[in-house]
């Protein structure tokens, strides 16, 4: 029998960790409890973060949104600041798991699980998210990019937990985009996904672009070469075809039971091809036939407070 410790504050959490230094820490439990069922290793206790008050809120701190690590995906989806300022994250959260999984799972859990297919990771990467790590004695902050080092591997140290993720409000980008290719619409592990932030001039020239792919490498894949190719150009099928070729070189997918590496590589490029059609019809505000689906996939952030 394992003890289940549910501290109500960070102070209580630190004493739990002191008492049971070997205990795994979990938030929603949607990954850990599945893993423990198949894991023969004996752990003396489990420490749950679901009741730690300090980890359950979203607040604005200057030009950042501070998201407590144990905030559930559902709470984030219902928070108008997420939908308003970070539609790229909202879109990813909508595709994550299923309603009950979103009622249980948390953003901190999605980050610390560090799955190559973690749905919040590509959007948080293009948003240049930073993670806040704390232990009983110290705290530190580092970019999400450097925090995750491989499948299931992070730079979290013993006695340390992820307390929050900090995201700058992406005022510098006009358009946010997320699309996930899975085998089904719900409860699907991503076969490939793409998050993008784009800024274009009034004349339609791409001024800045951030891209990140999920599920096509050991961690989130970024491709500075693709971004560099796009900047200074206008969206066109020919440009995106060129970008897609570079994107397919940047990714390093594997075969698994959901898809072949070849298919993942192929759609990593094709997701980019779609970016142009979404962008152009959103920019025109077009209501022409069949384009409704494009418009709901690409979001212009609203209500950006200074």
């Amino acid at each position: 029998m394992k003890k289940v410790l549910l501290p109500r504050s960070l102070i209580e959490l630190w004493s739990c960790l002191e008492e049971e230094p070997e205990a795994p820490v979990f938030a929603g439990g949607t990954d850990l409890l599945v893993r423990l069922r198949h894991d023969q290793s004996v752990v003396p206790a489990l420490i749950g973060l679901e009741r730690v008050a300090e980890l359950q809120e979203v607040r604005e701190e200057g030009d950042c949104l501070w998201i407590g690590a144990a905030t559930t995906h559902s709470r984030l989806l219902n928070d108008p600041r997420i939908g308003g300022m970070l539609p790229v994250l909202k879109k990813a959260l909508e595709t994550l798991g299923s309603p009950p999984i979103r009622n249980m799972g948390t953003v901190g859990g999605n980050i610390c699980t560090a799955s190559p297919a973690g749905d919040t990771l590509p959007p948080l990467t293009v948003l240049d998210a930073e993670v806040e790590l704390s232990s009983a004695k110290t705290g530190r902050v580092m970019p999400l990019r450097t925090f995750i080092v491989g499948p299931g591997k992070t730079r979290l140290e013993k006695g340390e937990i992820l307390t929050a993720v900090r995201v700058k409000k992406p005022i510098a980008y006009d358009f946010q985009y997320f699309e996930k290719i899975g085998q089904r619409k719900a409860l699907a592990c991503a076969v490939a996904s793409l998050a993008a932030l784009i800024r274009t001039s009034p004349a339609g020239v791409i001024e800045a672009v951030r891209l990140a792919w999920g599920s096509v490498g050991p961690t989130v894949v970024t491709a500075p070469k693709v971004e560099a190719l796009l900047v200074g150009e206008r969206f066109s099928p020919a440009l995106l075809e060129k970008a897609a070729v570079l994107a397919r070189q940047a990714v390093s997918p594997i075969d698994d039971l959901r898809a072949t590496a070849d298919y993942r590589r192929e759609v990593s490029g094709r997701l980019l091809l779609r970016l142009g059609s979404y962008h152009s019809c959103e920019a025109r505000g077009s209501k022409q036939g069949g384009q409704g689906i494009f418009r709901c996939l690409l979001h212009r952030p609203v209500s950006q407070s200074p």
Partner: protein
Amino acid sequence: MKIRFTLNGRNTSVSTAPDRRVLDLLREEFKLTGTKEGCGSGECGVCTILVDGENRLSCLMLAGQLAGKTITTIEGLADGETLHPLQEAFVGCGAVQCGFCTPGMILAASALLQGKPDPTREEIREGLSGNLCRCTGYQKIVDAVESAAKAMNHPDHSPEVAAIRHKGHLR
């Protein structure tokens, strides 16, 4: 370890191992076998329960996490012998075939209607997307939730429920 929580409207206290799955506790200790085990890993939704009104998966919850919470299982949805409008609608619309997914479906639907009393068919599909059914093809389940929503919003105007009332299947 003693755990206190509210189960189907009653204050409850139980002595159990805190790392026991809530699913097992409900089925074995409380004999509430309406909550089923399917995949045991959060992918099928048959172990759905309501925790403080939200649909969650009892196969991925530990008994210790129940402390202080309000839990509803499928057994707690009806008001005595009077079925919940969702249960009436599932019967009336033929939304049940083998019945294994039904408790989870109905609880997920009830959580959905709590937040969205008048959902579109697409919103119903989305709300139930964590619950798998291998018999019905989902069509009649969506019909049932739509019909229950109508019945709950306008108690006198649900044709399906009126029809089964008429046949005397329900009191």
